[in-house]
């Protein structure tokens, strides 16, 4: 895996995400997705996560149906009475949304293997207020912890005799509702403890914060950033009018 500065990765994320939101033509978006995947593989980032995307096939079909339902233009391919279930334009717009979703997910992969400390430093160097950066860092740090805790709670519930897969939907809802308030309370308690710990360690005691570690852009970073910007300009020019 190519060792890059987090700022380089952030630039790639911004480029791909902005282009994905600007263009609506599925042909352009498909090309963008191919470039995105190629970039990921050139940088040596793992693409295994893409194997899981077939699981969302139902969602993709639903998106196309919803688009067909609301977009009245195009040739109707499937009708139920007066209701359009599938139209050519519906498929076209649906495809655009799916491709956009895939590009955004693929862009996120650039940051997947980032060191959280380096990400913090990169955001600070980009002149973001440290308080906001810390919130981002804590968010990233605690997501897996909360997922793990939630999983443990669900295991504990099931080990006490509740088969969540078999009970009636209404009862499942009751279980979820019953665990929601204690869960919220536990999150609140954790946040409170964390804030006390931060204060105790002198958080915001002095206006200037120094860092033990530092990050620096290497020559590879500059080359990749310049290439990315150049490629973006070429891409925008090549797909002009589409």
């Amino acid at each position, binding site marked *: 895996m190519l060792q890059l500065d987090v700022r380089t990765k952030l630039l790639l994320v911004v480029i791909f995400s902005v282009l994905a939101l600007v263009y609506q033509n599925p042909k352009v978006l498909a090309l963008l997705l191919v470039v995105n995947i190629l970039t990921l593989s050139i940088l040596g980032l793992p693409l295994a996560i893409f194997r899981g995307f077939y699981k969302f096939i139902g969602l993709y079909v639903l998106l196309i149906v919803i688009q067909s339902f609301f977009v009245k233009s195009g040739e109707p391919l499937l009708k139920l009475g007066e209701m359009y279930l599938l139209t050519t334009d519906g498929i076209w717009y649906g495809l655009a949304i799916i491709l956009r979703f895939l590009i955004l997910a693929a862009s996120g992969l650039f940051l997947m293997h980032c060191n959280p400390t380096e990400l913090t430093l990169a955001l600070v160097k980009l002149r973001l207020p440290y308080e906001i950066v810390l919130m981002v860092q804590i968010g990233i740090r605690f997501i897996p912890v909360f997922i793990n805790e939630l999983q443990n709670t669900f295991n504990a519930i*099931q080990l*006490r005799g509740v088969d969540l897969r078999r009970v009636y939907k209404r009862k499942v809802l009751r279980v979820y509702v019953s665990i929601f308030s204690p869960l919220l309370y536990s999150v609140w308690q954790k946040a409170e403890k964390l804030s006390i710990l931060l204060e105790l360690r002198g958080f915001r005691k002095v206006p200037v914060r120094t860092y033990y570690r530092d990050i620096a852009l290497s020559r590879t970073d500059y080359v990749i950033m310049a290439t990315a910007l150049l490629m973006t300009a070429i891409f925008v020019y090549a797909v002009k009018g589409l």
Partner: protein
Amino acid sequence: MAFISIKQVSYTYNGRKKPAVKDVSLDIERGEKVAITGLNGSGKSTLAKLMLGLLKPQKGTVLLDGKPVQKYSLPEVGEKIGYLLQNPSQMLFNTTVYNEVAFGLKWRGKSRAEIHRICKGYLEHFDLWQLRDAFPFNLSEGQKQLVALTAILALQPACLVLDEPTKSIDVSRKKKLIEILEDIWRQGTGIIVISHDVGFITRFGGRRVHLVEGEVVDAAAGC
């Protein structure tokens, strides 16, 4: 036939090179008292999760009552084994201590009168009856631990797996816990304790299984 039979089981967590549990083989009889010891990170809790089917071994098999543990659903495993997590807060999800203990009993279709009798009995046994209306999250860590343990004991499983049960409880409650464990063991419930609390383990007795870096290095007969 052993109640829990672990055969050549290995497990490595995602993103780690070193296995958490390596080629472990262990038979635990019904009603047996076993203490699994070892330093932090030696694979004790991983072994417990493998016994309960919460983790799927990458190598080897775990049999529960003669059947691969993966063939059971979690509620079915829960009927046989009561599991106390290392962090009791993750086991509490009700708004009162009483409801916490009654939760599993309600889902097993017990009558209101029966639930009350069992809850009262267990809560009094642990000196928790006066806290029955308290919000579990407002209790001390030690009290939370006891509430979680009570909730499991109330379901009367055939075997108990207790992961660091003495982590946050005081000396007098530790003594009381040993008495209770001894009592329920005499009634036929198997007990597997995972701990590095040497004093507690010594008083607990039973067969000792010592783990070092995921491997069983000593499975001595109990006292």
